[in-house]
């Protein structure tokens, strides 16, 4: 499965949003309605899914679906 689809799965599960809202350009807070706690949960979910560790500093920069996909790509 490509990274985008896997990221989408995590987002749908952690944020409880409809899959069709999870587009590459969607922003977690503004478009998908995540609050600060859900953002943390989302990052933790991505760490689990891809077996990576995301520092708090890096997590600050991951604000869109595409940013998450790119970040994970850079780590793999």
């Amino acid at each position, binding site marked *: 499965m490509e990274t985008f689809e896997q990221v989408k799965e995590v987002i749908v599960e952690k*944020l*409880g*949003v409809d899959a069709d809202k999870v587009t590459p350009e969607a922003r977690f807070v503004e478009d998908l309605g995540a609050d600060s*706690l*859900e953002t*943390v*949960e989302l990052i933790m979910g991505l760490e*689990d899914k891809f077996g990576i560790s995301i520092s708090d500093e890096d997590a600050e920069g991951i604000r869109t679906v595409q940013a998450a996909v790119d970040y994970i790509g850079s780590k793999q």
Partner: protein
Amino acid sequence: MKRVVITGLGPLTPIGMGAEAFAEAQRAGRSGIGPITRFDASPISCRIAGEVKDDYLQFLDAREARRVDRYVQYALAAAALAVRDSGMTEEELRGERTGTLVGSGIGGMETFEAQAKVFFERGAGRISPMFIPMMIANMASGHVAMRYGATGPSSTVVTACATGSGALGEAMRYIQLGEADVMLAGGSEAAVTPMAIGGFANMKAVSTRNDEPHRASRPFSASRDGFVLGEGAGIVVLEELEHARARGARIYAELLGYGVSADAHHVTMPAPEGRGAQVAMRMALRSAGVNPEEVGYVNAHGTSTPANDLAETQAIKSVFGAHARELMVSSTKSMTGHLLGAAGAIEAIATAQALADGVIPPTINLDDPDPELDLDYVPHEAREARVKVAMSNSFAFGGQNAVLVMRTFEG
């Protein structure tokens, strides 16, 4: 002081959801107790409970539901039921004249157990950021306030099995003092979890009549062997009388009195002769301004434990004297099981319904009366009777007692 009336009922119980279904089940004397289905209870001596069977999630959106513990889900559903029953609109509830006082005996036990597992298996770094906000016991009040935009007085009572009664009593005070026109008050509990059932079982506090779940909660019977855990929530709309009148509200009953006390005796055993309970019952009558002889019905704490049912009976005899023989005393826990922090709230609802409908709910399973317990416990079948004043008792682990007194509304 302002007068306080009950204008909306929101029961979510093992015997039914919503005022009508709950009243109907009480009239029928139905048991809501069955084998535990939520998890494998086979390693535990107690394998029965009163689980919620109705589709309560219809009152929550999917996103809201996954962000809260089950006990808050129950509270939000019960609040929605109570608000709908009251006929108030969400617009009318918004603002600082509406308050929230929803308690829980335990809080988010299911969340706690799940996250404890994560912690022990994977370490502190994997604990969900939602763990604390899902678990803590004030979140039912918090979420109900958020749902309705109610910015008035808000607090949380956590007095174990007396929580629901305490919440209604404390909420009544805010309205009496003029600090709120409407209070959404009650209790919620979702403790049918492996650790809670296991803990209660090891206290020898719960019934192990696993082969006869429907007959396991048998208050005042000689063969009672402990309480049966139930789950759910009860929330009521309490309203200042003139506010209720102005909108032509249906009034179930007037909430008149509240007594609250401590046994100062033992963590789980009631004080001899129910002495702490007596203090709360007398205080409730005094604050209601009614004489013991005016009371016609007592919704008992009636847990079905050997110690409670004896101490409560002794306390009733002490407080009411000769009039105790004239009283109808019943335990709706015989049907619902013991909802801990929600118990007092659903029993206040049952008491208000008894006053409004003229039907006294029964104590079911009283097949073998304990010779020491000789009051009129309304055995087996509901009874038609017009009663003007009723009392609802709740006594908690920790020795904390809360008692409510209400009266048929007569204008």
